[in-house]
């Protein structure tokens, strides 16, 4: 029998990128919050400038809970889904923001209204076949104040390209209007990025320095980035990366209204016989607890948000919590971005010296992204951003990626090849607009279970046409950009076949106005269970041409603020 704890105002499930943000507006709004996190606190002593530790053994990113519930995957409903080797996310206070690349963007205003903008500009035949894309139930302007909160409270370095309609070509000229400049200047540049920037301008492109949730200067009493080159899959040894465990959660704890329960696994969200949620059941130290709450915000990763709803069945919700219309798991998709074949790499005839730096230390081009160009006659909508960046590790560099085929791969010939070229290759991301489709969804696997006996999530992801076309179109420009910069060879850029499991997993609890096509309302609360909010990527109906975290965080802040502002209505 579960030990019943004293009731709290709000339970937040998961203290990662989304839950770790939501706790601040909640506690500042006077609510008592219990944050339940499957992982624990990490410190700079947990992080190392070591490729074996971070990239080969994945010791920072290995989470105990997520690795017990890795989803299965298939590309056709006729196939049996197979469990994937490892889960791409982690459990910790701060979650995956601890080891993410910290590229921190706003979406383009177009992203919020892809369907209507496409109908207006190109007509219905340009909507991809089989896509379930809808306009978001809010606009860029609606989210702008929350983007601003994130940039200042989390801490984002960058250069504005559009302040209240005034365009500055040092920033992104395609971005939506923002109310003010970033709180910190962009991350330090370097020789290679200055070169890439100059070449892009000579091609008529509009490069800018990508924004990052990394301190470029001392900010909020923490040091600026030291560019040691082990940001990827590593935590920051000097707390310059603004993961929520160092940026937001301590502020919420300072209100004395947040209790962090770490090393705790939420098993079910409980509901009563009229469909309201009553709290959560969790395991900690081998014991079961019931934490009653007036409201619950579900902020696990996309996969677990979907799974926990489907598992939380009750008499009122026989098909899963908030799933009265079978929408939980629908409109799921992984972001078409950094996978092999989609990305582009270049080999230069000179030492680039991008060993050090950070993945977010980069130069970005949006000319081929979003609806920033005329798609007439191209046969797709959306596009991709192009991002050239730094940070190379020695084992990966010596492996030479796709350039290894330029030489026999062992012996003296190969040794001479890597001696000359290991420090001369450079990568680029091609992050692509991604839409939901009828052939892609998440549900519970019929056979594969976690150690508690619960089914893991099953991903079914059918083929797409729009995404590889948009990616390949933009990648062609990346290849042209690299070659104009002096590259002697490039690999990748064919468009790719998309992700298996994704670190940018979206949808499955889509936000919308129509309960027949979405799970949560325009504020992020269940259409069925009014005191259940969902935060994180699972509420997003589309993915932009850039990393999603800042949008997840802005939406999480907005949902939490709405709970404070509408407390009596929501908990009535």
């Amino acid at each position, binding site marked *: 029998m579960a030990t019943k704890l004293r009731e709290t105002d709000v339970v937040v499930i998961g203290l990662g990128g989304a839950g770790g943000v939501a706790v601040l507006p909640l506690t500042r709004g006077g609510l008592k919050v219990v944050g339940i996190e499957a992982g624990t606190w990490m410190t700079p002593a947990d992080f190392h400038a070591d490729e074996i530790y971070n990239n080969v053994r994945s010791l920072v990113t290995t989470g105990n809970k997520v690795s017990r519930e890795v989803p299965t995957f298939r590309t056709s409903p006729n196939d049996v889904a197979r469990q994937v080797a490892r889960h791409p996310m982690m459990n910790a206070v701060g979650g995956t923001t601890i080891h993410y690349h910290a590229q921190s963007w706003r979406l383009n205003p177009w992203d919020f209204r892809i369907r209507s903008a496409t109908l207006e500009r190109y007509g219905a035949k340009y909507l991809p076949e089989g896509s379930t894309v809808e306009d978001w139930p809010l606009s860029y302007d609606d989210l702008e104040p929350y983007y601003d909160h994130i940039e200042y409270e989390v801490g984002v370095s960058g250069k504005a390209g559009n302040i209240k309609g005034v365009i500055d070509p040092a920033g992104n000229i395609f971005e939506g209007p923002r109310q003010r400049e970033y709180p910190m200047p962009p991350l330090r540049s370097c020789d290679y990025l200055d070169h890439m920037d100059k070449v892009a301008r000579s091609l008529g492109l509009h490069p800018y320095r990508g924004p990052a949730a990394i301190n470029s200067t001392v900010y909020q009493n923490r040091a600026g980035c030291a560019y040691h080159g082990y940001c990827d899959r590593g935590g920051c040894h000097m707390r310059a990366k603004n993961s929520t465990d160092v940026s937001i959660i301590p502020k919420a704890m300072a209100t004395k209204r947040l209790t962090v329960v770490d090393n705790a696994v939420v098993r079910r969200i409980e509901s009563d016989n009229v469909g309201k949620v009553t709290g959560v059941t969790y395991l900690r130290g081998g014991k079961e607890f019931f934490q009653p709450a007036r409201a619950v915000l579900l902020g696990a990763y996309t996969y677990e948000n979907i799974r926990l709803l489907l598992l939380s069945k009750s008499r009122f919700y026989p098909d899963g919590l908030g799933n009265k219309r079978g929408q939980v798991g629908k409109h799921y998709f992984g972001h078409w971005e950094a996978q092999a074949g989609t990305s582009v790499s270049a080999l230069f005839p000179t030492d680039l010296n991008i060993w050090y730096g950070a993945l977010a230390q980069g130069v970005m081009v949006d000319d081929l992204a979003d609806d920033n160009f005329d798609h007439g006659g191209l046969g797709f909508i959306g596009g991709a951003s192009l991002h050239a960046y730094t940070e190379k590790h020695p084992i990966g560099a010596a492996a030479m990626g796709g350039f290894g085929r330029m030489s026999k791969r062992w012996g003296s010939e190969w040794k001479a090849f890597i*001696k000359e070229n290991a420090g001369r290759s450079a990568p680029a991301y091609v992050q692509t607009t991604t839409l939901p489709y009828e052939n892609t969804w998440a549900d519970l696997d019929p056979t594969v279970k976690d150690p508690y006996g619960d089914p893991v999530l099953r991903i079914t992801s059918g083929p797409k046409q729009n995404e590889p076309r948009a990616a390949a179109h933009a990648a062609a420009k990346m290849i042209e950009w690299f070659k104009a910069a002096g590259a002697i060879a490039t690999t990748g850029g064919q468009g790719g076949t998309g992700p298996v499991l994704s670190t940018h997993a979206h949808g499955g609890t889509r936000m919308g106005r129509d309960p027949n096509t979405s799970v949560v309302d325009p504020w992020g609360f269940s259409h069925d269970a009014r005191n259940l909010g969902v935060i994180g990527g699972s509420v997003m109906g589309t993915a932009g041409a850039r990393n999603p975290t800042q949008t997840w965080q802005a939406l999480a802040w907005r949902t939490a603020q709405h709970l404070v502002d509408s407390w009596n209505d929501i908990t009535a």
Partner: protein
Amino acid sequence: MFEDPDDRMPAVPASQLPVARETEPPQPERRVLLRSALAASMLSLLPLEMRQAAHAVDAPSVLAAELLTILDAFVDRIIPADQNGPGARAAGAAIYIDRSLGDWNAGELETLSVGLRALDALARRRFSAGFATLPDAQKDELLTVMEAGQAESFANAQQIFNRLHRLTLEGTFSDPYYGGNRNFIGWDLIGYPGAVLASTPEMQRMGHRLAPLHTSAYTLKHEHDGH
């Protein structure tokens, strides 16, 4: 009542589990942070002779002596000593692989041991001598056959070759902490200067080979010992 699986199926070895801590956020004082940032930037500027030599990880040797000899001959042909300097043998790549098989790659010990024996058996069939004793040209002939997956009675030859090739890279180019990349042989070969806690803009200047720093991540750390 749910069963807690924590006791019976750890997803990672206990030695790698995060240490349980008080549920309070770490809150360093400002002056401590600034001091560590300053120390970090100063350390990267210290002359080489003032840096400690990298120390090795403490992990057991698990490969049988004859297999270690075969493995050492293998890595020597993947990255040989030649006019471009010492190779994987001098870097201790086989030692790295052996130690990893006694630790985080323990699940592969059996497969790779069988694979090394199969390579040696191939050598004895074709050249009537053990792999490690063959002249380089004959070793290379066998590795070519192995890489192409065309070795008789050695069904997974290509898979074994690919895995040992990858582990040779790791052993040659990883932090010396793990027993390979001795004397920074691997990093010197490809021009990676070494692990630092902070880099300068000059360390990101294009068009020249950076001077070696010969630093391991685990000689830079002051706040703790390894992991």
